[in-house]
């Protein structure tokens, strides 16, 4: 059996080895490349868009590396794409972080700061939202295969996605309800870190590796 190619887009934001290592662990048939070259990305069978840190720096690196055009091509070619954490947020229209940053607008919606006065389990929330929280299934999707609704995943973020319900396939709650998993055609995105979410996260990555759009 020939190997499928999974490209992790490297635009200089953070360490991508843990994502690569998690995929190698669950997908024997995968050849994982960490790259920002056009050739690697548009010829891959699937693409992962990671991201950490502040959104302004992330978007700047994305633009400087010509990633917006590559993502457009990936979408047109129907290659499955998975955004992770800030890699999900950049797929929305706009983020409030860093006094407002326009993003790639593949999912209509805004990225907002967790409100200061909100509570979780009757206690004032701490920001960043850091740790294991439930994700509730809102819609069936191949990424959910073999994963129960309300499974916990590992999150670390201070801003959350407020998007159209039609694209939300998984919702979480921390002071406010927010989108934890998004999907639209060949695009999917998760706010949590599947590569750090133990058994459930590995299953989700395996589902991504098996996803037929």
């Amino acid at each position, binding site marked *: 059996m020939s190997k499928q190619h999974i490209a992790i887009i490297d635009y200089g934001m953070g360490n991508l080895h843990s994502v690569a290592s998690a995929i190698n662990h669950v997908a024997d048939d995968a050849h994982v490349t960490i790259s920002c070259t056009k050739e690697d990305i548009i010829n891959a069978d699937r693409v992962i868009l990671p991201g*950490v840190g502040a959104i302004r720096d992330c978007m700047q690196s994305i633009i400087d590396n010509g990633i917006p055009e590559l993502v457009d091509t990936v979408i047109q070619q129907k290659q499955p794409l998975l955004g992770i954490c800030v890699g999900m947020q950049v797929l929305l229209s706009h983020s409030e972080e860093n006094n407002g940053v326009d993003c790639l607008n593949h999912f209509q919606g805004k990225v907002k700061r967790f409100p200061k006065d909100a509570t979780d389990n009757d206690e004032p929330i701490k920001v960043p939202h850091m*740790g294991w929280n439930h994700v509730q299934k809102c819609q069936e999707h191949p990424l959910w295969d073999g994963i129960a609704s309300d499974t916990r995943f590992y999150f670390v973020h201070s801003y959350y996605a407020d998007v159209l319900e039609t694209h939300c396939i998984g919702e979480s709650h921390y002071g406010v309800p927010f989108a934890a998993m998004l999907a639209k055609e060949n695009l999917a995105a998760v706010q949590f870190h599947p590569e750090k979410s133990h058994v459930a996260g590995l299953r989700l990555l395996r589902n991504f590796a098996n996803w037929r759009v």
Partner: protein
Amino acid sequence: MALAKRIIPCLDVDNGRVVKGVQFVDIKDAGNPVEVAKRYNEEGADEITFLDISATHEGRNTTIHMVEQIADEIFIPLTVGGGIRTTYDIRNMLNAGADKVGINSAAVKEPEFVKAAADRFGSQCIVVAIDAKKVSQEGEADRWEIFTHGGRQPTGIDAIGWAEKMVSYGAGEILLTSMDRDGTKNGFDLALTRAISESVSVPVIASGGVGNLDHLVNGVKQGKADAVLAASIFHFAEYSIPQAKAYMAERGIEVRF
């Protein structure tokens, strides 16, 4: 439905071995860090903290290699602390596979370092580790100060003010160790934990003194900690991670199974 309180086993590593001493003396060997980390990952630990307590340069080089090996084997977050002094050290640890780094004495020496680190790498990976000791006398209002060098050197810095300052400089999390309790198995300093947790807007990990499962429960319920860290009770198999979680869940604490 709520965010789970985290249970974090801590690996104190000296020259490539997990050790645990009472107040940093009488050090006992608790195994190979990679094997120990793998076991905790399988048992359901929510995160792992790796503290390099090596005094030597060779010990530190071993650490990078160990972090790489651990990162390949575990699929939960990994924090690495001990000897992080420059942004170069941080980059090395993140590249080796750490998700977060703990900064302790370098922050005390140069607080601006925390700002630079958070600006460059993001607050989500900057944990400021605080070693605090009670300095108020009997009958006075509680007061704690920051100590360095394993609790031997006073700095005169108030612990609560320091925690607030570190958060304003970009710390994404506080790892709070009571130097009075560390290694004693008498439980966390709950008043200290609560005072810090209620003063800052970021998560606080309680550390120092866990000897039984009630201590973990108290750390969350009375200390208001967002996560509890322990070493010897897990290393020497007095309790397992699932046992600790079941015990906390029975007492109404949200945990992840």
